[in-house]
């Protein structure tokens, strides 16, 4: 055994000590950030790990206003489902609603306030603080207000309902500007105008597809895009198989088969623009064949004299037999319903066409009947004012004002007119004349890109709000929208931004708009509403009511149907009947094809294009993903020698787009269809530079009566470019080849 001397021992200790210190230092230097399985030692109170909670709120992917439930785990939103107690969605959701999570967790969201530092529209933005941003905006608007120039401030937003609408209105009123407008490409302006003429009501009626037995749809893709698709789908399921032994029948009249056309028992491609005429032809047959027994029969038959089925047949290219048969079925079914939308409501004859369809409903006697048109009572919120939709005409006025230099500050929220207006109206160019454009937006879409200042808004899943579904469901309903997750970034709900701006501008604004947050504002309004309706229902403290409404996400009064429904006068209906044939932009000899742009069930009017789940969802009718295409009838394609994937120049009098051809069996020869939704120049990584936007080449014809853009009234010509492009589809062969895949033929109708 060797001995260790004291010196050695000290040396060892010294060396060991250095080693230990060195090791610790080294260990510290290479140590990685500690990642804990559960990051919080004391977890937040509002959730327990591993347990899912559900919050009810309102979907904002389209204007239908479906109630949704969001599943939250560990403070993160995991899944959107329909709110089972909400009368619009009844526990169901569409694909777009599901994809709302992609909007919340979108990688391309705006995360902080941004200021444009380069040329306008160049997309050079710099991060700034909220204080700075709000001060800039507040002082600018404040100065205008002091100078009594507040009317040079304009607010443009998408379809906004509920108390946010009131907040906007109040803000602009207090400011002293009456230029608060909304623009939504999908807003059924023509339908509203036509219903006003036919029924004298400002509120969209409830179309009771659920109880209908015979549904005649003139261009309305009620299952995909028209007004309230989820609710209509529920109704459709019931119409088909919900009643024992009685299967409802649906007919779809449109030049290009939509989802609803595919679901229909019969799809009729009348000549584009003559759908309203066809309705009148059917009406004529209804009266002349004796299916209408009203006292005003003679007046009707006089009014419809000019629309005998044989004449209509020649114009619409729908056989006389078919018109008579439709009239017979429509007249004899126990509950017939006719609706109009889509391209039928987007010609220069839109209002006249819808009026004609309304006449059909009148003749079928389905007004205020189950399975017919049910007139909604007044909305749930007594204070809700009428719609502030600018319509196409309003947008032209705005463009004019901008061009004339009448607009100093333009506030834009949740609308994308640069994308959703034809190119040649020059919205983008007019924006160059506006000294200050402020976008309140979650995404950098085309319009937001043009802004000088971007105030990032929280998405609807992070914001307070409320909503009155439009159309209602036959009884008063209001939904509450509440944040389901904590705000992800340095963003504010749009209501909070408006309130902050009010404080920033000063004067009487903060006195009247005294609420700290949107939540406070909404709660106060609901309290007032509650107090007003105090007598109704059982006695209950407001807090308890509020809590219950929050939990349910919705409040409604089933059964509270308005007592005195408007009974439309046939005289006014008869008087409003006009010759409904659409004009088209472009000469038929130069532009042989009618362009049929259509809203898609995937992207709606393009607002869904930045959501990857929707980009990856095959188009329901064609299975195409990630791109645009132009649909051609196989015969037309054959004649022109066009194969799938040939890139075509689609030229209208207003412009042209370059897009690959797709041979589509269910489109009328002489019509070409391009889906709306793609063709974004901005709007994040999933949408940018993908496909084309047909709205851009739409000629600016307007509906004769409502002044709305007639976006289905453009003619185009096709030019082969010689290029080819692979259209990405998920479908292989779309014929069954005689294989029994769809089940044995049977007729249980």
């Amino acid at each position, binding site marked *: 055994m060797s001995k260790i001397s004291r010196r050695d021992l000290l040396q060892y200790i010294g060396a060991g000590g250095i080693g230990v210190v060195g090791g610790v230092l080294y260990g510290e230097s290479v140590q990685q950030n500690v990642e804990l399985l559960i990051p919080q030692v004391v977890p937040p109170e509002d959730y327990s790990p591993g347990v899912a909670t559900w919050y009810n709120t309102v979907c904002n992917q389209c204007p239908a206003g479906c109630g949704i439930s969001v599943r939250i785990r560990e403070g993160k939103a995991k899944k*959107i489902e329909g709110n089972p107690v909400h009368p619009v969605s009844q526990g*169901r959701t569409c694909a777009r609603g599901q994809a709302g999570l992609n909007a919340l967790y979108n990688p391309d969201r705006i995360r902080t306030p941004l200021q444009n530092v380069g040329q306008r529209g160049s997309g050079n933005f710099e991060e700034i603080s909220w204080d700075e941003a709000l001060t800039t905006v507040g002082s600018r608007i404040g100065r205008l207000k002091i100078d009594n120039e507040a009317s040079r401030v304009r607010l443009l937003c998408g379809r906004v309902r509920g108390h946010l609408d009131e907040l906007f209105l109040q803000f602009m009123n207090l400011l002293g500007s009456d230029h608060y407008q909304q623009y939504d490409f999908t807003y059924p302006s023509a339908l509203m105008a036509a219903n006003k003429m036919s029924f004298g009501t400002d509120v969209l009626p409830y179309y009771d597809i659920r109880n209908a037995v015979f549904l005649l749809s003139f261009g309305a893709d009620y299952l995909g895009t028209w007004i309230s698709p*989820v609710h209509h789908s529920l109704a459709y399921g019931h119409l088909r198989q919900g009643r024992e032994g009685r299967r409802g029948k649906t007919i779809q009249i449109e030049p290009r088969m939509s989802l609803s056309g595919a679901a229909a028992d019969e799809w009729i491609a009348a000549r584009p623009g003559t759908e309203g005429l066809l309705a009148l032809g059917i009406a004529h047959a209804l009266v002349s064949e004796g299916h209408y027994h009203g006292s005003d029969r003679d007046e009707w038959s006089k009014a419809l004299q000019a629309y005998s089925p044989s004449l209509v047949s020649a114009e619409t290219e729908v056989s006389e037999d078919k018109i008579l048969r439709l009239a017979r079925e429509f007249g004899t079914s126990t509950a017939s319903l006719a609706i109009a939308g889509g391209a039928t409501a987007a010609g220069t004859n839109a209002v006249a066409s819808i009026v004609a369809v309304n006449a059909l409903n009148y003749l079928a006697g389905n007004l205020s009947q189950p399975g017919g048109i049910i007139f909604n009572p007044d909305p749930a919120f007594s204070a809700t004012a009428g719609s502030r939709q600018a319509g196409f005409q309003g947008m032209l006025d705005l463009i004019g004002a901008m061009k004339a230099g009448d607009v100093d500050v333009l506030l834009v929220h949740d609308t994308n007119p640069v994308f959703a207006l034809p190119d040649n109206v020059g919205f983008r160019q007019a924006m160059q004349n506006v000294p200050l454009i402020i976008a309140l937006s979650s995404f950098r879409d085309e319009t937001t890109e043009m802004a000088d200042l971007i105030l990032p808004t929280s998405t609807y899943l992070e914001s307070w709000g409320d909503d009155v579904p439009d159309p209602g469901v036959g009884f008063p309903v209001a939904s509450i929208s509440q944040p389901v997750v904590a705000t992800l970034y340095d963003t504010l709900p749009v209501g909070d931004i408006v309130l902050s701006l009010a404080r920033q501008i000063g004067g009487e604004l903060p006195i009247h708009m005294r609420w700290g947050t949107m939540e406070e504002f909404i709660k106060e309004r609901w309290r007032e509403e509650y107090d007003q309706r105090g007598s109704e229902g059982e006695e209950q403290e407001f807090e308890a009511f509020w809590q219950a409404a929050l939990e349910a996400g919705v409040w409604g009064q089933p059964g509270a149907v308005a007592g005195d429904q408007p009974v439309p006068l046939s005289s006014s209906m008869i008087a409003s009947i006009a010759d409904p044939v659409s004009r088209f932009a472009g000469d038929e000899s130069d532009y042989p094809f009618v362009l049929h742009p259509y809203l898609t069930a995937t992207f709606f009017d393009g607002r869904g294009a930045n959501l990857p789940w929707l980009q*990856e969802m095959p188009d329901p009718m064609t299975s195409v993903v990630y791109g645009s295409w132009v649909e051609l009838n196989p015969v037309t394609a054959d004649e022109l020698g066009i194969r799938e994937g040939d890139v075509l120049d689609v030229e209208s009098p207003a412009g042209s787009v370059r897009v690959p051809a797709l041979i589509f069996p269910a489109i009328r020869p002489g019509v070409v269809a391009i889906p709306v939704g793609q063709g974004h120049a901005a709007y994040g990584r999933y949408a940018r530079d993908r496909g084309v936007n047909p709205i851009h080449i739409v000629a600016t014809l307007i509906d004769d009566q409502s002044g709305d853009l007639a976006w289905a009234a453009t003619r185009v010509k096709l030019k082969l470019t010689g290029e080819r492009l692979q259209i990405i589809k998920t479908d292989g062969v779309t014929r069954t080849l005689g294989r029994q895949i769809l089940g044995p033929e049977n007729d249980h109708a």
Partner: protein
Amino acid sequence: MSTFVEKLRQYRKPGYYDKFDYHWTMTIDLDRCTGCEACMVACQAENNLPIVGEKRFAENREIKWIRIERYWEGEYPDVKMRFIPMLCQHCDDAPCETACPVFATYHNQDGLNTQIYNRCIGTRTCAVYCPYEVRYFNWFTYTWDEPLEQQLNPDVTVREKGVMEKCTFCIQRIRIAKDNAKDDDRRRVRDGEVVPACVQSCPTEALVFGNSNDPEAKVSKMMKNPRGYKVLEELNTTPSIVYLTKVHS
């Protein structure tokens, strides 16, 4: 030994799971289905299906546990479009189950055709053998653009490259429902307590899901519908999905 033989015999008896509590079944009413594809996105959200990107779609490598197949009938103007949702049929005599050399796919006692991602070695035989082509292979490890990954469902595995995946009838929801039933001292899950994501979302209520061992369940009643049929029935795979054919009028 004798008990062992007995067990084996029981095991080998066709339909051996009959003695168990559940036989999960789905009916799809094609007369209601509108092809809106809400089910596809619901499934994607629930089951952490990857966002594969345009390139992968072009290569035909998408992953959609439920898809809508489209079939045209006739020519213009009498042309009709027929949709049929196609998802794993959970066959009782599944061709895929015999194919896997490592038992990564097997039939569980609830009548589900299950896929164990951890066990899969990626021979892809099951996908070749499946006549419905509802098995999807992970050709790559897919990633989510930040912060999309925050949406991922913690109840469902995220799959890596080299693994086969397919519809599970949302087995995680079945498990949760069973656990709840157990916590409530119930022996069975109530009808309608388990709803897969696709069934839940379907706006036309075309999809109905339930336990066909329970004669009172809605799905059992739907199965008795004379319109009922099974896709590719002649292959004798005895699928657990009953389609109700579209009515022609």
